[in-house]
């Protein structure tokens, strides 16, 4: 009897499906899917605060961000934002960070495979990275840090791939990634010493070939094209622009990004230069200790000993690769320890990634050490149990510290302000209020009559002059009035801000 054609197709489809499943790299899939699922469960449900609100609003409204401009984030974030993942743009961009974290971990998996670390120990090492409090927290909100770690892992992986077969094109890939990564985070320059060390010590003869230089130069030029996003967006005169300054008349003067000097000012972050290496020598030790404590917490104490072991073992086994990782680690740690900003704890993620690689190698060394014992079955499973158990413990301990799944506070604050302020109001505030209000206005179309100014973009004297000149003409709201303003006006609490009302008799 001849079977029906549809039945034949069904059997064939099923077997093809099973074949595909059997071919699936389950370990890599798990390293990607498990953390992504964890991040999805704890993801911030809508627009988040501070920088996160600024990034989301700029991506969604084709705007411009303050220094260092972050053109790559603006570009790839825009592409991501087109995916129909949610009607809430804030949620979509938060999910972007979760996705990039999972990509970072996936590449970490491939790096550890190359270093011959066994599957359970890879999962243990990368699991601790995935659940480290700040790595987890930065995966739940729109931020540039997980794009940075994803690119960084890609650079390390592509450099390793280049040493397998050192062709000019294979070297061009890490160079391209590094250049384009500058468009996401200028801290990419901290990867350069390690990468140069690795290339020079691994294949110095390659540098004598003109093809290598031609490929490298092409990669740099291609990577630099990402910075064209800045003049292109500037030319479209975006409504959301954090690259410029308001004057005392309330007129915004954008930095001219059609000129090289303007782009250079923005991307080099000269406005933050004062914070770099901002500690006296006597102030440094507490900063070093604080970083050590943060690393200890990130890897749940259990990852410290094996991590150090991995550093030593890897450096002895492959001093070129060891030098690459050590230089990247030291450059990032030293720079951020010396960076005088309050939120620098969020910026150490590159050092976590390196530590996770060392941790995997350290775990593997312990596993080798335990081989060929009297009871050969017990110790390896003991070690795997410890590695995986530590990850589960980290999930349990850190969940409540990082979970943002019920955090609607930023949207609520911004909606309260827009609901309370009078028509044609001027609202001045800092990062905790203004970017989120601008998100509601520019992305969701709420209250276009209200003008909002981030005080970051207006000098204090100009702000006082602007407010005093308009105090009788329109309602003015501010988060923290200065003394000079309080002498001319009373402050009436309205939601999270104050409405200023001119005094009948000014104070002396």
């Amino acid at each position: 009897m001849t079977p029906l054609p549809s039945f034949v197709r069904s059997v064939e489809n099923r077997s093809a499906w099973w074949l595909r499943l059997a071919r699936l790299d389950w370990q890599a899939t798990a390293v990607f899917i498990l953390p992504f699922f964890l991040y999805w469960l704890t993801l911030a449900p809508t627009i988040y605060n501070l920088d996160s609100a600024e990034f989301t609003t700029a991506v969604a409204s084709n705007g411009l961000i303050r220094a260092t401009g972050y053109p790559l984030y603006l570009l790839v974030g825009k592409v991501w934002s087109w995916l129909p993942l949610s009607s809430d743009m804030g949620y979509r961009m938060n999910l972007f960070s979760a996705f990039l974290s999972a990509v970072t971990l996936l590449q970490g998996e491939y790096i550890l495979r190359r270093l011959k670390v066994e599957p359970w120990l890879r999962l243990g090492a990368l699991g601790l990275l995935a659940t480290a409090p700040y790595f987890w927290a930065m995966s739940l909100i729109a931020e540039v840090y997980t794009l940075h770690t994803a690119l960084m892992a890609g650079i390390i992986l592509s450099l390793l791939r280049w040493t397998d077969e050192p062709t000019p094109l294979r070297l061009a890939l890490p160079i391209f990634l590094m250049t384009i990564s500058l468009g996401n985070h200028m801290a990419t320059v901290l990867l350069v010493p390690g990468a140069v060390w690795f290339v020079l010590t691994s294949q110095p003869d390659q540098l004598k070939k003109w093809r290598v230089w031609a490929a490298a130069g092409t990669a740099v030029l291609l990577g630099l094209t990402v910075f064209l996003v800045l003049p292109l967006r500037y030319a479209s005169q975006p409504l959301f622009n954090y690259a410029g300054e308001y004057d005392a008349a309330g007129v915004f003067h954008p930095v001219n990004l059609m000129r090289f000097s303007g782009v250079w000012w923005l991307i080099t972050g000269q406005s933050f230069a004062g914070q770099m290496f901002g500690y006296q020598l006597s102030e440094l030790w507490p900063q070093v200790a604080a970083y050590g404590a943060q690393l200890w917490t990130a890897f749940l104490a259990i990852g410290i000993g094996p991590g150090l072991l991995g550093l030593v073992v890897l450096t002895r086994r492959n001093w070129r690769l060891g030098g690459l990782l050590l230089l990247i680690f030291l450059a990032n740690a030293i720079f951020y320890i010396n960076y005088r900003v309050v939120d620098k704890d969020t910026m150490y993620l590159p050092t976590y990634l390196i530590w996770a690689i060392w941790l995997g190698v350290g775990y593997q060394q312990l596993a080798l050490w335990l081989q060929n014992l009297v009871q050969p079955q017990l110790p390896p499973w003991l070690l795997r149990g410890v590695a995986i158990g530590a990850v589960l413990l980290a999930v349990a301990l850190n969940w409540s510290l990082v979970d943002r799944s019920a955090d609607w506070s930023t949207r609520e604050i911004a909606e309260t302000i827009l609901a309370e302020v009078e028509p044609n109001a001027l609202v001045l505030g800092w990062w905790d209020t203004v970017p989120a209000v601008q998100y509601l206005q520019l992305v969701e179309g709420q209250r276009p009559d209200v003008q909002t100014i981030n005080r970051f973009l207006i000098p204090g004297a100009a702000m006082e002059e602007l407010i005093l000149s308009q105090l009788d003409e329109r309602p003015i709201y501010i988060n923290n009035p200065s003394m000079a303003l309080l002498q001319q006006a009373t402050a009436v609490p309205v939601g999270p801000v104050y409405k200023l009302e001119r005094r009948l008799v000014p104070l002396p």
Partner: protein
Amino acid sequence: MSQERKEAVQRLGITLLVLLAGVLLLPYVGSARAAINWELFGDAYTPDLSVSDNIGAPGSQFAFTGSGYQPNRLAIIFVNGQVVGGVTTDGNGTGRFIIDTTGVPDGELTVVMETDANVSAFKTITVDSAEAVVAPPGGFSGPILGTTGSSTFLPFVQR
């Protein structure tokens, strides 16, 4: 104990030592764990002024803490528009001071801590003879700044 077994015990011991090395650092690291949310870094952008008590009888000493200011900067302290002193912020941008209300009549005092027009925060306290005299919390330290409290009309902030 056979040589093999002895070696196995040694290796197991060294493995445990490496795994637990980080735990041994616990006394030097501490175990303070805080939720990571935007409020944790909100001060990086917004100055804030907090006070130990909002109300107290004349003679009370109110302990103020300003945070989120520029580090190592002189902040001017105003009470009802009058300069009463200054405080230099520490390396974290925090400054502490005490307002002494001895001789101040009942009423509201608006206290402002300001480094410049864009970095300013205020808090209102009430002096009320019907309340108890309040003092700074134990261990609180900062310059004690006196005020007459009656130099300008009140209040800065309407409720």
